[in-house]
């Protein structure tokens, strides 16, 4: 798929993580100024399949479509609740079961929610290194939403501004990113002569 994929790892129903993810998606499409297909992936819906994939090495059933939506998207929004000072285990396991290189160069907008504003650095201390390792391209602005952000008026919280700025940054990166021309080793294998010469 091309378009925008939105991964949210909230466990509650309704989930403030999903709420933030939705607002980030809306800000991104608004900044793009055009219709972009948006695919939401709620990791809770795939919790068993994510663990199964970690054990078997392949995504099964409806989870496969979710993985394809994420790995084929033009841009990704990834939002996790902060548990014990970092992203949730489910959030990490999802990214653990993707194929190596699956998110290389991909524009990503990072978001997190938590029970206190004191955990806001989890984005920069935990999420950014993860996406750096995956060679994705996170935008500079990440959005953390604490309980007070949801109830505060504009005077006390600039959540809406941060969401708009982050969405605009992701939109700009999606627009700037050239269409992915990935080489497919099953379509174009390294010729044997090259393998034998040590070029594999």
């Amino acid at each position, binding site marked *: 798929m091309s378009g925008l994929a939105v991964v949210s790892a909230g466990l509650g129903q309704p989930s403030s993580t999903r709420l933030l993810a939705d607002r980030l998606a809306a800000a991104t499409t608004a900044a793009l100024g055009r219709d972009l297909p948006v695919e939401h992936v709620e990791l809770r819906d795939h919790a068993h399949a994510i*663990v*199964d994939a970690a*054990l*078997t*090495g*392949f995504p*099964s*059933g409806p989870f496969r479509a979710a993985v394809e939506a994420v790995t084929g998207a033009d841009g990704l929004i990834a939002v996790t609740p902060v548990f014990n000072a970092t992203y949730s285990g489910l959030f990490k396991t999802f990214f653990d079961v993707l194929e190596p290189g699956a998110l290389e160069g991909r524009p990503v907008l990072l978001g997190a929610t938590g029970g206190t504003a004191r955990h806001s650095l989890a984005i920069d201390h935990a999420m950014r290194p993860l996406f750096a390792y995956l060679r994705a391209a996170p935008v500079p602005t990440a959005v953390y939403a604490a309980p007070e952000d949801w109830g505060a008026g504009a005077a006390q919280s600039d959540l809406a501004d941060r969401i708009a700025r982050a969405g605009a940054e992701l939109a700009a990166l999606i627009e700037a990113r050239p269409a992915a021309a990935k080489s497919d*080793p*099953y*379509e174009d*294998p*390294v*010729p*044997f002569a090259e*393998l*034998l010469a*040590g070029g*594999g």
Partner: protein
Amino acid sequence: MQFGIFSVGDVTPDPTTGRAPSEAERIKAMVAIAERAEQAGLDVFATGEHHNPPFVPSSPTTMLGYIAARTERLILSTATTLITTNDPVKIAEDFAMLQHLADGRVDLMMGRGNTGPVYPWFGKDIRDGIALAIENYNLLHRLWREDVVDWQGEHRTPLQAFTSTPRPLDGVPPFVWHGSIRSPEIAEQAAYYGDGFFANHIFWPKEHFQRLIALYRRRYEHYGHGAADQAIVGLGGQVFMRRNSQDAVREFRPYFDNAPVYGHGPSLEEFTAETPLTVGSPEQVIEKTLTFRDYFGDYQRQLFLIDHAGLPLKTVLEQVDMLGEEVVPVLRKEFEALRPAHVPATAPTHASLAAAKRTGEEVVR
């Protein structure tokens, strides 16, 4: 089509009793399974190669030599022989020796091995896995075809005027398969040499293997060994059967749920829907196995995994009998009726390769 059994050789406690067989029991059980495979009319027995517990088969040609003496028709093979950590010189010698003892009833399957610590035990590095597979096999291929070899490479001491003995039986090297579950490089390698390609697709969905086998077939044709549909393909399979399919599911479930590879993950029902695993009646096994041809084209060898996860020997031998009596005769007939005349019915055997050599025909490089 050739049908057979392949064994990993794991020592796993039976989850229904908690009892694990001794190494001696497991090794003798593998021999008993091979002997029963011949009695039941199957064509091939292949053993794995492992150098770490809980697996027993560290010395495949010792085991296969013993089985060779106790059988008459069975083709003895491996799944797989580690082309990365074994010295290709020793592989050349061991399997040529086995060929002579078994009157040619030998082929073998190259594999890399995916257990990181095993490599350094043999002085290698898993990060060189592909490079080792390419270089070592290239040397092995020469050792069986050239009487005197001068060789120099990256991963082994050089050879000057080396002759691997004994020479292959009748001057015909054993047929070689290359097994891979994900590496396009290995499909390319198999295609280059005109060797067989074995896709052990038993733990993953078919879509991935369709791409891998399509690559092998396309490149086999590219390298001039024949048409893509004439390339030599082998597939895995995994079955547990009882006459009544509910009985099969009930009996196999604890083995599935605790199996070392996929246990404690997906349900048996989910896994059978996604992979070749069939737990049910012989008719269901026939039905599922016939679909392999729809997905991968006409193929030459079908190996079944039936003896893992702690299943008792008695049960495994019942599976061999059911394969031989009820499943394989039907599959032989059905596959044969569907096979176009120009597609090889089986993988090359020693007899077919020796005959081709006599008439100067180069069937397979």
